[in-house]
């Protein structure tokens, strides 16, 4: 305990971090996007079954009757409300919170860079993510893969194979899957243990066209199979960013939120209220756009050669 008042990162690293933050700000200033600030607190919260919000209590005038507020897991919902209000292309650096996430690449409070490009699709935005990443870590070649193509070497059809077949494939490559995993969880298992660690080893790897169950807030492109217009960016085996060609259909978004709430209910998880203000903004009209959230701490890890997120944070969880 005696030394836990000291920062985890060296002062040299914190100075380098400040320089990197300045270069990120310069990138967006040059490109003419509007910097915005949205609240960390929210009366509603994300309902994605794999993203847990931290809760807090407000006592005083003006808050919700129950007093319950959530800390944002990303600034996505309020930023989309700004887009619907006509703000144009926007960006921000935000503090975000994820309950239960702690490890060499996770701290429950971290720094997210999020931006939206009006009139763009996910392909346009991937190219800009590559430019931003290269501006921070130095020039690297980009490669693009569909989600399904990365499973082909394992004899897996990521869009079609049932859980039993995925379980067999996992066992064949030496994994012991926990019992009764869903199809989606088995894909995550293979992804996290075998595929993701190999990505971004030579350059910047982008993965796009996700299975529709993993669409989240991305639009689905009909076809055979239909795919979610979502992408992720990997550097040095680490997921750095996640982006969408954004879903603008309010009814479809409500259906997905309700399905997520039902999943949470059936698993005995906390069910936060739907963000009706976001849904109202979608109904009013979200412009066609693409958006991305990028974990700045991880990008700084790559830039500074850190192996543990604590090396780039002043005070990680155990020192707060």
């Amino acid at each position: 305990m005696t030394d836990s008042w000291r920062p985890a990162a060296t002062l040299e690293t914190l100075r380098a971090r400040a320089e990197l933050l300045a270069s990120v700000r310069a990138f967006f200033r040059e490109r003419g996007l509007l910097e915005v600030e949205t609240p960390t607190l929210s009366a509603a919260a994300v309902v994605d079954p794999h993203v847990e919000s931290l809760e807090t209590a407000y006592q005083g005038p003006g808050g919700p009757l129950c007093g319950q507020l959530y800390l944002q897991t990303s600034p996505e919902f309020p930023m989309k409300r700004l887009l619907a209000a006509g703000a144009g292309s926007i960006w921000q650096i935000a503090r975000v919170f994820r309950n239960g996430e702690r490890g060499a690449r996770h701290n429950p409070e971290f720094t997210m860079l999020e931006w939206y490009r009006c009139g763009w699709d996910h392909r346009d935005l991937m190219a800009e993510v590559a430019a931003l990443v290269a501006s921070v870590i130095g020039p690297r070649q980009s490669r693009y893969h569909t989600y399904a193509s990365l499973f082909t070497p394992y004899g897996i059809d990521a869009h079609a194979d049932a859980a039993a077949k995925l379980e067999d494939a996992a066992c064949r490559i030496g994994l012991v899957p926990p019992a009764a995993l869903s199809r989606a969880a088995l894909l995550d298992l293979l992804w996290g243990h075998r595929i993701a660690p190999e990505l971004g080893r030579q350059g910047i790897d982008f993965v796009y066209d996700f299975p529709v169950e993993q669409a989240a807030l991305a639009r689905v492109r009909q076809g055979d199979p239909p795919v979610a217009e979502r992408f992720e960016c990997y550097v040095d085996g680490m997921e750095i960013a996640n982006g969408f060609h954004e879903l603008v259909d309010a009814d479809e978004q409500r259906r997905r939120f309700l399905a997520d709430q039902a999943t949470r209910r059936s698993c005995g998880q906390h069910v936060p209220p739907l963000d009706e203000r976001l849904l109202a903004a979608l109904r009013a009209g979200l412009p066609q756009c693409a958006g991305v959230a990028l974990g700045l701490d991880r990008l700084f890890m790559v830039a500074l050669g850190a192996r543990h997120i604590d090396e780039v944070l002043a005070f990680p969880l155990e020192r707060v």
Partner: protein
Amino acid sequence: MATYTTNQFKGGLKLMLDGDPYSIVENEFVKPGKGQAFNRVKLRNLKTGKVLDRTFKSGESVEAADVLDTELQYLYNDGEFWYFMDPETFDQVAANKAAMGDAGKWIKEQDICNVTLWNGEPLQVDAPAFVELKVTQTDPGVRGDTSSGGSKPATVETGAVVRVPLFIEEGEVLKIDTRSAEYVGRIK
């Protein structure tokens, strides 16, 4: 039955898996941003010493192994078993070769060792980190001989062989780090 959730996982935690006790060697939190969280764990089987990888769904509970670390005094060995005694209760236990690992190379009668017990049976014996042992055999060092990197082998009273500097002579007592099997210094 005591259990641990994955949130309590850390190096050294003892778990039951498939009926055997295991100790966590490494615990890694793996989670796609929008996907299922897992704990990817490296575990050592405390009976066989074998290391395996296992993945748990984060939040899952696992049965705790009823494992106790205790300080016992080494008495003697009969070639098959090493016998230890609790200095307070005088209870005795016998550790087999698998449980002894390398510890048998370093201990002398009456040394106090950390013994890991599972259901009362010794699973693992750790020699003290540092031991002091007398040299029973070593060739005289040849001055100026640098072909061996300035060191030579010496046999100590327990029968173990360590690399020592050339000036060490028979009958001297050495301080040895049992974790690396390295010579640390001379006891004068």
